[in-house]
């Protein structure tokens, strides 16, 4: 075990994969000489060379398109979108090419697209988005979103080993804020949910940066026993884990940092309504960012993002119901 930050865990997974498997290569804007906008790939080009740590033009469509081609002929490319927000420029290559390849041609596309996502640091509307639900809606893509350092490493290993295109949602706000013990070497974290804290009165379902918010908001709620379920994987969604938590707790708060409409939490809420109806003791409550772009202004941003107070209030309301 080594203690490392969420960002170091991602770096460590990439480095281990590059060392272990010559098919793995890294590509993206400024990932080489500059070491990446967030320094995830700092020092990589020196160790692995420019052929395997490739600086690309500012063209997300080209990055993903090249990665798809490389994957089809047997490579395992890991693309970095400098910010998840920029994925919209590569949407067609990811959704229509990578996601459909297996169904159209029977070809595997083992690419990973790393998507530094999320807000909370005054990044404004183009550097703070959480676009994961767009990819949940598109068949053929997997979507994972770690909340801890250990999961960041384990899920990235699993994503690189997976034969499908995987969107790896890494939360920028967690990069240097979250630290934890991470096992040495290559290990895979399954694409399943994790009970971050067991409880019995109410469950808060979250993923990514919202797991910490949920844990903090419910650490002491007048003695109530609150479960926190970290989804970790959005596609595939661990339905059994969700239904199991709901069966035990009967009250559910779902937290999304993404905009409310059609977010991942909406899918979870629909699942619960359909398959856990008889376990419910109250309405399924959602806490999410309203359907507005993320503002630059720090106080405004704090007002729209789901924070500890809003989650606390939602839990209190539902507990009293």
């Amino acid at each position, binding site marked *: 075990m080594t203690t490392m930050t969420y960002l170091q865990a991602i770096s460590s997974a990439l480095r281990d994969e590059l060392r272990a498997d010559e098919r793995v290569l890294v590509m993206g804007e400024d990932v080489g000489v500059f070491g990446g906008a967030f320094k995830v790939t700092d020092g990589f080009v020196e160790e692995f060379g420019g052929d395997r740590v490739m600086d690309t033009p500012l063209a997300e469509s080209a990055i993903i398109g090249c990665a798809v081609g490389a994957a089809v002929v047997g490579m395992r490319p890991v693309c970095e979108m400098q910010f998840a927000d920029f994925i919209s420029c590569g949407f067609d290559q990811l959704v229509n090419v990578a996601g459909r390849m297996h169904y159209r041609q029977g070809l595997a596309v083992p690419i990973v697209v790393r998507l530094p996502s999320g807000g909370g640091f005054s990044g404004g509307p183009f550097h703070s988005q959480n676009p994961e639900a767009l990819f949940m809606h598109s068949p053929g893509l997997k979507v994972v979103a770690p909340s801890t350092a250990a999961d960041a490493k384990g899920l990235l290993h699993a994503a690189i080993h997976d034969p499908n295109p995987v969107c790896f949602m890494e939360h920028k706000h967690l990069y240097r804020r979250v630290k934890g013990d991470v096992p040495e070497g290559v290990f895979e974290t399954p694409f399943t949910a994790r009970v971050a804290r067991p409880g019995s*009165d109410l469950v808060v379902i979250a993923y990514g940066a919202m797991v910490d918010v949920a844990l903090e908001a419910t650490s002491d709620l007048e003695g109530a026993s609150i479960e926190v379920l970290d989804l970790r994987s959005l596609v595939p969604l661990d339905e059994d884990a969700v239904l199991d938590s709901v069966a035990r707790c*009967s*009250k559910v708060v779902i937290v999304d940092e993404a905009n409310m409409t059609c977010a991942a939490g909406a899918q979870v809420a629909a699942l619960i309504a359909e398959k856990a*109806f*008889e*376990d*419910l*003791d*109250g309405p399924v409550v959602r806490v999410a960012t309203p359907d507005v772009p993320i503002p630059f202004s720090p106080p405004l941003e704090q007002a729209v993002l789901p924070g500890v107070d809003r989650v606390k209030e939602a839990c209190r309301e539902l507990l*009293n*119901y």
Partner: protein
Amino acid sequence: MSSSTTESLSASHPPTTVDVTMPQMGVSVAEGTVVAWRVEVGDRVAAEQTICEISTDKIDTEVPAPVGGVVAEIIVGVEETVEVGVVLARIATGADAGDAILPPPSAPAPGDAILPPPSAPEPGDAILPPPPAPEPTSPSGRRRYSPVVQRIAAEHDIDLSAVVGTGRDGRVRKQDVLAFVDANGAEPAEPPMHIESPYRPDPSPAPAAVAGARVEAASPGAAPASPGADGGGLSRMRRQIGQHMKRSLDTAATCTTWIEADMGRVEAARARLGVTALAFVARATIEALREYPALNAWLEGDRYTRVDDVNLGIAVSLGDDGLIVPVIHRAHELSVEGLAARIRELARRARDRSLSADDVAGGTFTITNPGRYGSIMATPIINQPQVGILDLEAVVKRPVVLTDPQGTDSIAIRPMTILGLSWDHRALDGVLSAQFLAGVKRRLEGVVV
């Protein structure tokens, strides 16, 4: 559906009655006996609420109200036995029946909505029908209950109007209904137990008066008082098993024969297939029964019937409650793997109390297998009217003398078991039982690994 239709329907609703009949509980069941009434004339009932308990020669079950309304008439009394389809009671629905939850099935005009019109004539007003039998306790009118609260209430047979709510505006929360269950020690209303004999859990002692609680256990004319677990009396299942066993010993000329079998090949093969030894013993027994069909038979009085099909009963323990013998019908058509799958499935359903009457009927031979605790021999009692029962006990490693083809003896450690066959001397003699056991043994020792 227009709202005027709805209105005229609910307004002009005449009081009508709906018959509650003795249900068909399986193709082999022709009649049933009313064991207890849970309601009295004049009681208001919700659709699907249990109104009486019935038993047949195979299973015990509850009869739900087909509609909501008021019990208008109880026709068949406790301990009376009537044929399937006979009217047990009548429920009044319609305007005079107060808050009937659902209109009688005849009410909606063709092409009407699937859901019954709510009493308020506003179409699309309520998505769900109102909760069952609510007693308005809050000034705002009738209480609504969450799905989980309704489910727990149904499982424990709780009248929710008696539960004090601690949620917002007196709402009954999950913890309230759970606390009510704890406080009243209400036995969960188990689904009917299926066995050769009728059985229902003993009624719990009447709970201390809870404000407004209807004590459902004190149904009129309940089965003969049997004290609860503390009182020392036997549960109905135990009594029925006892009667059944005693009747068998009084009827049959029971004799038990044992044989030892080397289970080495079975142990190896079962490890490979991932099944239990019981499945192999069942298969060997079935084949031996085909060779000696005299044991696959019924003896009722003087009437001795050999049966073509092997319908193999497997005794399944239900722990403290007793045991039950589900039947694998046409077991001779199944392979070892097929038998193993059926045994697993029947055991699971037996423990879930979800066997149907047909699942326990028609057995021609029975295997009992209490061996996993290490006991080595027993004298099983024949399951009447069958003529034989095979007992499989533990497989134990023992030193045994083996003779090789040259006639040289050696001592080896072998996994051995003792198979016990209880047979009815009225139907057959000892030679046949020994031949049958030797047939089972030969097959077990010749299993292809």
